[in-house]
């Protein structure tokens, strides 16, 4: 992958990121933040590669990175789900009320 292609991909993804969030109701601010935070844990795949390539210092760094990133990913998705679950019970299907 050349740098130019990398930048192309980065720019396009950033556009998608900008567009994807349009009008979030305030009650979703925290879950949305938490969910996207979990996605930023994608760095775990870099950490896996680093931890797997051997070498002491890199190994230590890699292990820490995997651990940290996994906390971010696993904890992030779980806690988001908990939040949304609570939210779901409060919401009932809207029914029409005459007058």
């Amino acid at each position, binding site marked *: 992958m050349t740098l130019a292609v*990398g930048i192309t*991909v*980065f720019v*396009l*993804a950033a556009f998608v*990121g*900008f567009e*994807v*969030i349009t*009008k979030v*109701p*305030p*009650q*979703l*601010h*925290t*879950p949305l*933040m938490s*969910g*996207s*935070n*979990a*996605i*930023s*844990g*994608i*760095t*775990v*795949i*870099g*950490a896996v*590669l*680093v*931890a*797997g390539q051997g*070498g002491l210092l890199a190994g230590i760094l*890699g292990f820490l*990175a*995997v*651990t*940290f990133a*996994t*906390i*971010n*990913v*696993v*904890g*992030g*998705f*779980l*806690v*988001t789900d*908990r939040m949304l679950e609570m*939210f779901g019970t409060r*919401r009932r*299907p*809207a*029914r*029409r*009320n005459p007058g």
Partner: protein
Amino acid sequence: MSEAASTLLYLAAAALFIVGLRRLSSPVTARSGNLMGAVGMLIAIVVTLLRSGIVDYTLIVAGLLVGGTAGTILARRVAMTGIPQLVAAFNGFGGAASGMVAAAEFVADGSSTTETAVTITLSCALGLATFTGSFVAFGKLQGLIPGRPLLFKGQMVFDSALAAAVVGSGIWMASSGNRSALWLLIALAALLGVTRTLPIGGADMPVIVAFLNSMSGLAAASTGFVIGSEALIISGALVGASGLVLTAIMSRAMNRSLANVLFAAFGGDDESQPEGIGGGPVRRATVDDAAVTLAYARSVIVVPGYGLAVSQAQYGARDLTDRLAGRGVKVRYAIHPVAGRMPGHMNVLLAEADVPYAQLLDLDEINDDFPRTDVALVVGANDVVNPAARDDASSPIYGMPILDVDRAGAVIVVKRSLSPGFAGIDNPLFYRDTTLMLFSDAKAALESLARAVQTA
């Protein structure tokens, strides 16, 4: 697995992130969106594990197990009220991980090209600043660090110098390939994360966490450039950009600009919180907050007062309550005998807007219902909901019957300021924990609420 196949699978993961994020921004689809994100992440991890080039799985598995367990426990154990700080902490871990991967890459390969040098510097700086910044935010939210802005004289200059030093150490690292440069870079970035977060007030922390989240995304993207991974670039850019948008949305919801949040403690705070006679702090709501509170309530009681009449907001009130009723919310109006400035003032107005008589209840009929009501919406009323009349024998209005709105689950008060009503006395209701103040002209507020409820 072939390079192409893994690239496409990473792409599939990224697509799941995108669709997941989009679904997260609507209440109805949010939960499935989160699940899609998790599935995407699983795909990405599995693909990575299957890739060639991994020589030793021990550390990986160890890390996954430790991290997974810790994450699970933390997420399960935390109390609902502790979630914001937990999110901050998670975010810090993610940032740190990105920085470490880049650092490890440097340790292993050195900075071969300018490109690598720049991206490693970026990853480490962003990652570590995110790490420390997130933990300061965690501390503030958890109450370990005082919520008020902490800053010292000349901090702006200090921070600028620090930022310059980070860049300098990056250049040093790139040119010399010296590991000390890396450690210096990391230390300086970590320090910068702390000094840039401490001056920000506790109330602004959610915005800051969102901002740090965006930064950790950018760190991941930059790490993607370092290790040549499109998956990281895409996901990082996605989180970076959407996080920035979310940050902007959140600060707008607080009626602030992002710059104002980030630098408010330095510049003059141009936003003056209205001060009551009692002088206590109040919880200030935006129209959106109030709309959501109303839209998802089971029952709402509207308490109209003289302010509703002054701004001729009766049509807005009816519009709002019609829409709430349309959502299945039980809506009633509580009419206090002396609300307004003449006997029957509220009746005249509400009849004008054709609010059905069946929805109008007088004090005696409705007062016992407040404890069973989710939200009391007080519109331009003041004296008639002043708990001092009930609780404070020294109050000049002591003994006057009031509407017990303070017994409802939540109270939203719409008025323009904290200034008192006809009786000229302060109202302790405004300073209660369950009270949200929506400072606005009543007509404007009700009309915006009606609109906002529609889309909530």
